[in-house]
């Protein structure tokens, strides 16, 4: 099969890749951002190639497979510094010596010409729940809110800790391969609107998840991805030009004061300053039993992400250890009790239909 003109044009563009980080992702992974032949995308929907960097822990392989299946065709997976999982055995592996950039380009070209067939789904082509032909309208639903219309139940009413309007709460696991969360981290988040209502740790971030990437993630969260990439260049953070740009951008003003305050008075703003000015020295934060719930509950999405990424990895893992590991309500915190008692039922039981 030859290439048509669109494919020929596409072959000249940078390869859109989505990176799924494993436990010991090589240091060069970040440097891929600087490669002009690649474009690192934030969502698997935009990617042609899934790059698995480092070892994916056994517990997360199911997540990797789900992620893999979300890529549009034509797609390919490349394992870098790790071995393919059994289900993805057709994927390519790249080891230490190889030039990853040109390998990615070749793979994409092979995909476009059709030399390499697009990878099939790992997971079976089945809906989460059987819905076709079920129920009075054949869409799987029952009544107004019941059943599993189009394969899933609807979100259900839940308490709200802010203004007491009990609307639907959305509970889901987020992670481990979301770019704004530390890699490897899975949070079970209950959202009322865009506010964190409850949060539990399903899986903490990898031990070596970030290697000083927090500052770059923070800059990205604050809408400055170009400056974040600039930090990848050697010694960029010492440059006067870079510092001036950061000051000009008003980052410090953009971060709300007292956001994510710990017991010793450090907040996102001060931790950001520290990371920017003194990246080699880790901060010694006094966490004293501080859990993610104390930090994130009642926070809006962007603020919550800023708080999460303002901690260095060691502190974040400590905070995760202080947080309940599941969304069961036996650890309900004070704010929830104040707003009128616990939910008698575990929310997740709704989803089990």
């Amino acid at each position: 099969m030859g290439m048509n003109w669109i494919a020929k044009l596409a072959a000249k563009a940078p390869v859109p890749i989505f990176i799924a980080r494993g436990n010991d992702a090589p240091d060069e992974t970040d440097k891929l951002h600087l490669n002009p032949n690649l474009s690192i995308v934030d969502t698997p929907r935009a990617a042609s190639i899934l790059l698995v960097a480092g070892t994916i822990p056994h517990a997360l392989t199911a997540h990797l497979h789900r992620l893999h299946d979300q890529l549009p065709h034509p797609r390919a997976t490349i394992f870098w510094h790790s071995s393919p999982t059994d289900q993805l055995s057709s994927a390519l592996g790249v080891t230490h010596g190889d030039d990853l950039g040109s390998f990615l380009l070749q793979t994409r070209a092979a995909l476009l010409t059709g030399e390499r067939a697009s990878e099939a789904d790992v997971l079976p082509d089945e809906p989460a729940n059987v819905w076709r032909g079920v129920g009075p309208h054949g869409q799987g639903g029952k009544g107004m809110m019941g059943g599993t219309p189009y394969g899933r139940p609807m979100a259900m009413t839940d308490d709200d800790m802010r203004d007491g309007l009990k609307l639907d709460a959305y509970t889901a696991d987020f992670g481990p391969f979301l770019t704004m969360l530390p890699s490897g981290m899975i949070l079970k988040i209950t959202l009322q609107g865009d506010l964190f209502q409850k949060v539990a740790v399903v899986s903490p971030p990898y031990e070596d998840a970030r290697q000083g990437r927090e500052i770059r993630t923070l800059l990205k969260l604050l809408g400055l991805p170009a400056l974040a990439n600039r930090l990848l260049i050697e010694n960029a953070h010492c440059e006067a030009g870079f510092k001036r740009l950061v000051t000009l951008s008003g980052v410090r003003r953009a971060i709300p004061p007292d956001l994510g305050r710990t017991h010793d008075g450090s907040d996102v703003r001060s931790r950001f300053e520290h990371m920017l000015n003194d990246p080699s020295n880790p901060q010694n934060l006094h966490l004293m039993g501080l859990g993610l719930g104390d930090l994130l509950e009642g926070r809006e999405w962007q603020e919550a992400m800023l708080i999460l990424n303002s901690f260095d990895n060691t502190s974040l893992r400590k905070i995760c250890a202080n947080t309940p590991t599941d969304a069961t309500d036996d650890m309900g915190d004070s704010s929830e009790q104040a707003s009128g008692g616990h939910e008698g039922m575990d929310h997740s039981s709704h989803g089990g239909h």
Partner: protein
Amino acid sequence: MTIVIAVLLIVGLSFLFTVGLRSGVAVDDGRQASNPQQRPVLGGSDPETHALQRFHIRYYTMTLLFVAFEMEMMFMYPWAVVFVEEGPKALAEMGMFLAILSVGILYGWKEGIFEWE
């Protein structure tokens, strides 16, 4: 009438362009999205429920204030046209009008409707 025709023409062309993007792609092999592909992006996790829900917005009071304020815009447009003719009188009247409305904003501000937390 020319205006309506022009608008309809532009809308028509834009729709045609978007349809063209969707259908004119020769490389698209017309594959339907499979069930695993349809799952919403959560970084590898599986959601429990549909995302569409009674979404709890925090700024609903602000939207009410906004709608009231937006109304006032409709008075300002004709005002702007005759401003130079009417001179200081127009300035004074609109100043009063805006001052009255600003009281509403100050009240909302005091009640903390611009805050999430």
